[in-house]
């Protein structure tokens, strides 16, 4: 059973390494937007404000909204990177995150060595990592490039590797940012098959994207974020209804 339950969640980014005083004078006086002062008189950006939702088994959720709406921040918060300043967060299930394909990758190591390294990041042993590497090699389809340092990889190749790595661990909750669309069509077909298999195993997918055709094809539910708040939450047709497919 996988579950993401969020109530009254808020994330604020303090602007630490700036000249706070001049920033204050310039922006704060007039800004009705997301920059504000917290109780310690620091300038903060309200990245997420008072979010409440519950995602249960088998749901494929799309996070949509303009740039800076808080989609990636929400993914990172669910992943456990940021601690909320308000609200509660309950996550049941192993998380696989495809937020930044380069995270935790060492460009000087080969594809295979990076899989072992990732296994260590996940708290597995080297032996587990080597077994995992064989599995990943099969799916990523990188051929001999699997044994080459990844800094020589093309963008598509790194995406294949990251995707294969993240999904080989069969997470119960898969968090995904839209970069993975960089794979070629062959790989996209494979990826889709694997994703639908992941989701039919009654797990959760949360994906942040601007591509509405992806949303309509893969998702069962959409949450529209804007300015760090939820504007709409419902089935894909309810949320995207008026919008034309581009």
């Amino acid at each position, binding site marked *: *059973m*996988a579950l993401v339950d969020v109530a009254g969640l*808020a994330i604020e*980014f*303090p602007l*630490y*390494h700036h000249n706070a005083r001049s920033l204050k004078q310039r922006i704060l006086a007039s800004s009705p937007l997301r920059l504000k002062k917290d109780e310690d008189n620091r300038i903060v950006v309200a990245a997420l404000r008072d979010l409440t939702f519950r995602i249960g088994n088998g749901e494929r959720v799309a996070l949509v909204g303009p740039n800076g709406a808080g989609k990636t921040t929400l993914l*990172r918060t669910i*992943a*456990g*990177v*940021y*601690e*909320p*300043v*308000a*609200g*509660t*967060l*309950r*996550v*049941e*299930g*192993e*998380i696989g*995150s495809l*937020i*930044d394909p*380069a*995270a*935790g990758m*060492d460009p*000087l*190591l080969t594809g295979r060595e990076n899989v*072992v*390294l990732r296994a*260590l*990041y996940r*708290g*597995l*042993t*080297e032996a*587990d990592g080597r077994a*995992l590497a064989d*599995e990943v090699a099969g799916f990523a389809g990188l051929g001999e490039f699997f044994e080459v340092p990844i800094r020589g990889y093309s963008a598509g190749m790194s995406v294949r590797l990251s995707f294969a790595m993240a999904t*080989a*661990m*069969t997470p*119960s909750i898969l968090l995904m940012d839209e970069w993975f669309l960089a794979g070629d069509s062959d790989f996209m077909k494979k990826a889709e098959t694997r994703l639908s298999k992941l989701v039919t195993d009654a797990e959760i997918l949360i994906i942040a994207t601007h591509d509405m055709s992806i949303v309509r094809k893969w998702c069962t539910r959409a949450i529209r974020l804007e300015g760090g708040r939820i504007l709409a939450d419902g089935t894909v047709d309810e949320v995207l209804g008026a919008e034309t497919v581009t």
Partner: protein
Amino acid sequence: MYHAANPVREFDAAAPRRRERALEDLEGGFARWRLAWALARGDITHRYRGSVLGPFWLTISTGVMLTALGILYAKLFKMDVASYLPWLSVSLIVWAVISQVVTDATTSLTGAEGVIRQMPLPYTVHALRVVFRNAVVAAHNLPLIFVVFAVFGVMPSWTVVLAIPGLLLLGVAGFAASIFLGMICARFRDIPPIVGSVMQIAFFVSPVIWKPEMVGHWEPFLPINPFFALMETIRAPLMGTTGGIVVWLTAVFWTGVLAALAWTFFARFRGRIAFWV
């Protein structure tokens, strides 16, 4: 196949349970020592990628410096090279380890920014990585001491084994420093240059190139300097004495103070680290 037992993660901003989370972080960090070790090893091998001698350049550069300084300082301080150089090499090598640990500690978290902002990982892994990385560097430099001893015919006595607890103590202090300095340096970006200057001053005010007995009746007060206390627990055993109970007690005391500081900071501000880096 690699399906973990369904973990549950809960966070309530109204009841952050900071102490428990910091403890879990500590446990999780040590459980992933393999990761810290792999990262530390990677740091060293990447630094010397494509080089023929690799990390042994560390050994060679230390060796060259020792020879040059030893001859010059013996002349300056009018001391016999045969008695001064072994002592100086132990001093300089041990000091290099300490000063490198402190310098590395300041970037323990900011250097891992990419990972910290992208995936949830116990922060103690990064501190452990600093300790392991410096242990590898020390392992390349410490054997030089025995080369110098062999050249000058110094026989190390049984006290050499006491250097092992000394090094372990330094490891604990380095771990605490990596958490404490790593955190304040992530929050206040002016701290790393300050630490740099302090280490430079510490080099001259601590008995590294001068012998402790040179300060005369001030000698009993030297352990007030934490760098001296920690260094002496390693240097004295290598030079054939125990270092004395006072030095060991003060070294443990200073390590304890540092660990307490680190723990207090870590428990209180752990949740803010991802926003600082």
